[in-house]
Every structure is written in structure tokens, then in C-alpha cells.
């Protein structure tokens, strides 16, 4: 029973889900005009990575589960990044009173 656990779903199903989530995140990253939504898209991409790591960890690294540890680090860092991102967003909002990515053009690309 123990060996059979979680094997009824193929590993590839998780990987496909992660790929799809990652691509949705990339699309949102490119096309969002609201800076907060760009941050959300990045969180989606990170969650896709986490699904990948967790799936590999469960299917291929069952006794050492390094992927789970990696995921915990990703979650930690993502939280720090989100906090910093929103602090920067707030300070920019105070200066510009907009969160529209298209209007952040004081510096030319």
C-alpha cells in the first residue's frame, strides 16, 4: 500500500500542470499593466516551480525529499521578495500615484 501511494497519478500529470501554470504566469508577467498583478504573476511562476519540485521529490527522491526542503526555501524567499516588492511599490506610488506599468517611463528602456 505504501509503495502504491500517490502513484495512481502519473508524475507527468503534475509536470504538465506546472508547465501550464508557469506559462500562464509568464503571459501575465508580460501583459499585466498593473504592477501588483505583475507581482502576482511572479508568484504563479514560483508556485509552478514548487509543484515541479514537490512532484520530483515525491516520485524520484522519496526517502531524502530534498525537493521539499528546496520548496520551503522557495516559499521563504518568495515571501521576502513579495514584502520588498510591495514596499518598493508603495514608495513608487507615493511619488507617482499610479501603478500602471506603461506610465513608468521616466527612464527610457
Amino acid at each position, binding site marked *: 500500500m505504501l509503495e502504491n501511494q500517490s502513484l*495512481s497519478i502519473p508524475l507527468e500529470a503534475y509536470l504538465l500542470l506546472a508547465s501550464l501554470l508557469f506559462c500562464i504566469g509568464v503571459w501575465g508577467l508580460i501583459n499585466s499593466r498593473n504592477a501588483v498583478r505583475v507581482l502576482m504573476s511572479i508568484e504563479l511562476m514560483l508556485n509552478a516551480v514548487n509543484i515541479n519540485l514537490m512532484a520530483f521529490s515525491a516520485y524520484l527522491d522519496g526517502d531524502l525529499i530534498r525537493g521539499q*526542503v528546496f520548496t520551503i526555501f522557495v516559499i521563504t524567499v518568495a515571501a521576502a521578495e*513579495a514584502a520588498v516588492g510591495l514596499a518598493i511599490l*508603495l*514608495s513608487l506610488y507615493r511619488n507617482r500615484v*499610479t501603478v500602471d506599468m506603461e506610465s513608468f517611463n521616466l527612464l527610457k528602456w
Partner: protein
Amino acid sequence: MNIANSTELICFLVLSIIVITGSLGVVLLSNIVYSAFLLGGVFMAVAGLYLLLNASFVAAAQVLVYVGAVNVLILFAIMLVNKKEELKPIKGLQIRKVLSAGVCAGLLALLIRVDLTTPWNLPGPSAIGEKATERIGEHLFTDYLLPFELASILLLMAMIGAIVLARRDVLVNDVGTGESVDQGLIEKTTNPILIDKRSTS
């Protein structure tokens, strides 16, 4: 196929559908508040997937950190910067969206091809099951000790930096000369920036 397996399969399908539709909603909905709540739903569903993978500790961390902290933080940010804002229409935006969708579809095809064609090293060693939390602790204090300690520094630094950036401080004097300063770059722009100062007053 027994009942346990089919239950698992159904759970997986339901969670995947929540993840996919939720994330599509996050990037597509025009109301950012709905997006933020859907993002919370996606995080919860991903935590459910972790439970399916026998990783209860990571699932708990996902709920606590992503839903409890990141998502709440995002909601706060939306409330703080929530001004009715008429986005200026931009020419060719629709074309850009379609084009980038094409690019993303190409990327997706590539990723799927790699996912499906790679001969993964299956079946791996049997799962550790309920001892996973213990094993994570062992990892954090043996071979991942260095990143673990560094993560604490990262969090400390992020906290300090976020406070420094977000607080409205009254310090506006040069420590050396005592002159008043404006907390801007020393290099002044030659063309004046149109800054709406209403919020800073």
C-alpha cells in the same frame, strides 16, 4: 482501480482545474481585487496538491506563508494603492497580447515535450510518508544548514529594507552639514518630472 486511487484521481483533477482556472482569472480579470482573491484560491489548491503528494508540512507552510502572509500582503497593497485609475488605451495592445500568447504557447509546447519525452528515473525509492517533517528538519540542520542560516539573514535584511522604504520619516537633514535635503538622487533631472504631489502633501 480501487476507491482510494479513484478518489485521489478525482481530487487531483478538481485541484488542477481550480489551479488553472484560478490562475487564468488572476491574469485575465480586470478587477485586481478579484485577482487577488483568486490567487489565494490558487495557493490553497496548490497546498491541496502537496497533501496529495504526502507532504503535509510543506502544505501547511504553503497555507501559512502564501495564503496567510503573501496574499494578505498583496491585498493590503491593493487597498493602499487603490485609486480609480483610467488606464490610457495603448495602440496595438490587443495584438501584443495575442502575440505574447503565441510565444507562451510555444514555450508551453516546449515544456510539455520535455515533460513527456524525458525518461524520468521511475519508480524512485519508496516514499517516506509521515516521517517527512522529521526528515526536513534533519536536512535543515545538516546539508542545508548554510542556506538555512542565510535565509534568516535574507529575511532580516528584507524586513529592515522594507521598513526603510515604506515608512514616512521626518529625517530631512544632512547629517554632515545640517542642510535640508529631499531624499532624492543627487543628480537632478534636467527635464522636470511631472509628479503628482497630492499624496505626499
